[in-house]
């Protein structure tokens, strides 16, 4: 634990920004786990939300601070500090050719279902997740429907009992 803390302190400070008055941090993938851990030690006691955004068709977003290279996927984590009544949001850039981030399960077990959902719908993998499987879609489903290159109605709905000809 102290190792990670030390590396976070030694490393450059995590770029921050504000969006509609809400504070946002932009850690890199390497600093992601360490940042969340130090935030947890600071008092952010619960991981409220974890989701992914696919920026495939909106690459030129302007709300990233300088030095952050926009990538296709963004893992968005919401943490809350009850004692100070503050929230903080983390936006982690994840490239399309290697969509993996470390899992937060060891720090916040409550992210288990949220990370499964993110994997299910976006195909972003969470390394170290104890049950890395689909959660909403059937286990044999092919594809990740919330990706922007999966169109609406692109997959014909098949009912197992439906006959081929009517």
């Amino acid at each position, binding site marked *: 634990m102290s190792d990670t803390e030390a590396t976070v302190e030694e490393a450059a400070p995590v770029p921050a920004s504000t*969006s*509609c*008055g*809400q504070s946002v941090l932009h850690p890199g993938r390497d600093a992601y786990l360490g940042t969340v851990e130090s935030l947890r030690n600071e008092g952010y*006691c*619960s*991981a*409220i*939300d974890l*989701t992914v*955004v*696919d920026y495939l068709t*909106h690459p030129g*977003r*302007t*709300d990233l601070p300088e030095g952050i290279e926009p990538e296709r996927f963004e893992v*968005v984590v*919401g943490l809350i500090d*009850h004692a100070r*009544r503050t*929230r903080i*949001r983390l936006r982690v850039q994840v490239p399309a050719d290697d969509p993996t981030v470390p899992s937060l399960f060891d720090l*916040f*077990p*409550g*992210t*288990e*279902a*949220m990370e499964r*959902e993110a994997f299910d*719908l976006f195909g972003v993998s969470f390394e170290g997740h*104890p*049950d890395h*499987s*689909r*959660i*909403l*879609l*059937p*286990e044999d489903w092919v594809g990740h*429907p*919330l990706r922007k290159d999966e169109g*609406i109605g692109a997959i014909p709905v098949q009912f197992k009992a439906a006959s081929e000809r009517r």
Partner: protein
Amino acid sequence: MVDEAVGAMDMGSDERVRRRDRSAVLRMTEVEAAELAITPRNPITGEVADERMILNMGPAHPSTHGVLRLLLEMEGETVLRSKPIIGYLHTGMEKTGENLTFLQGPTNVTRMDYASPLFSELVFSLATEQLLGIEVPTRATWIRMLMCELNRVSSHLLFQATNGMDLGAVSMMIYGWREREEVLRFFEKVTGLRMNHNYIRPGGVAADLPDGWQDDIRHLLEIIPPRLDEYEILLNNQPIFRARLQGVGVLEPAEALALSVTGPILRATGYDWDLRRDEPYLAYDQVDFDVVVGTCGDSFDRYAVRLEEIRQSLHIVEQILDLMPDGDYRTQDKKVTPPPRARIDESMEALIHHFKIFTEGFHVPEGEVYAAVESPRGELGCYIVSDGGPKPYRMHIRGPSFANLQTLPHLMHGRLIADAVAVISSVDPIMGEVDR
């Protein structure tokens, strides 16, 4: 031949032992569970070699509140590990939300948590308004608060009804439904619909309160509190009801926080956190109410917290009755609010605005925002990313039931299967919101 079979079974049982760690969550796929579900027998003696079995419960079980399915690892009648399997109601509403304009958005999100639809509409509207940077008129804010508190009452009454039914107090089901119907009747009068209202929209609400709404509210305030007292007489001192809830499914505050639990389940553990008081939105800082907390975090506390929250919500409604300001019920920003019907006949500009809003939709500045409200089930969040267009680039709803469901394996661990029913009921999941 026989030796081979015995050897294979031994290897299998090693595998079984390895998988059966001490944790409460059954982390395996359905295929693996189906393999484990076959009770192995010693091929020579025919004795059952393993007392444990995997039992499937749901998705069409009356106590699973819709289409929740559970894989339960049972030893006799004791639940060891379990895994909630969800997704039977998944209809891709977040994807749908990306293809509806911001004005159409509430029709989509209102179908998520169908027991408290107004909260989903509210949180979507709040997020959109933050991106737009518009102020909502005071009266609209207070109408929203009135409707949401009444919705909390109807949702908790539904919980009282189903909770009673699950525990065998079937008359409670009828009573809870009866009072809920009174509230829904008011909703129908205001919004036109009993559920899925599409009443709270970005910029305000769809229509002003009808004439005489105060009398309807006074009627509700008159009939519901005495009936809550009746519920207490009916349930609180009933030995069967108490025995089935007290000490069942105990959750510690630290566990609840780690599992991202919010709402009445978190408060029942004794943890004092309510977004209405701690991160006030709408006008909750101008009304007086108590945050109800439990002491033990068991199923009975979750029942009692929700019952008392009905009283607190009615207390808020009573204050709103006196404090409701006059004014407009929606913003007069012409880019967001459609013009009144009469204006379309006389003003070309009004016609253009009407046409643009209903065909293309209004454009929302680029950005991302997270809004959260305290729904009857906990923190309901909405994360919207806008690319500057008339539709959300990404619309994510943080459903409280989705996170709360993760507590089920921990609450059921080591309890009887009959307690599983009480535990599911006390978590009060709405599957429409879990699966979205």
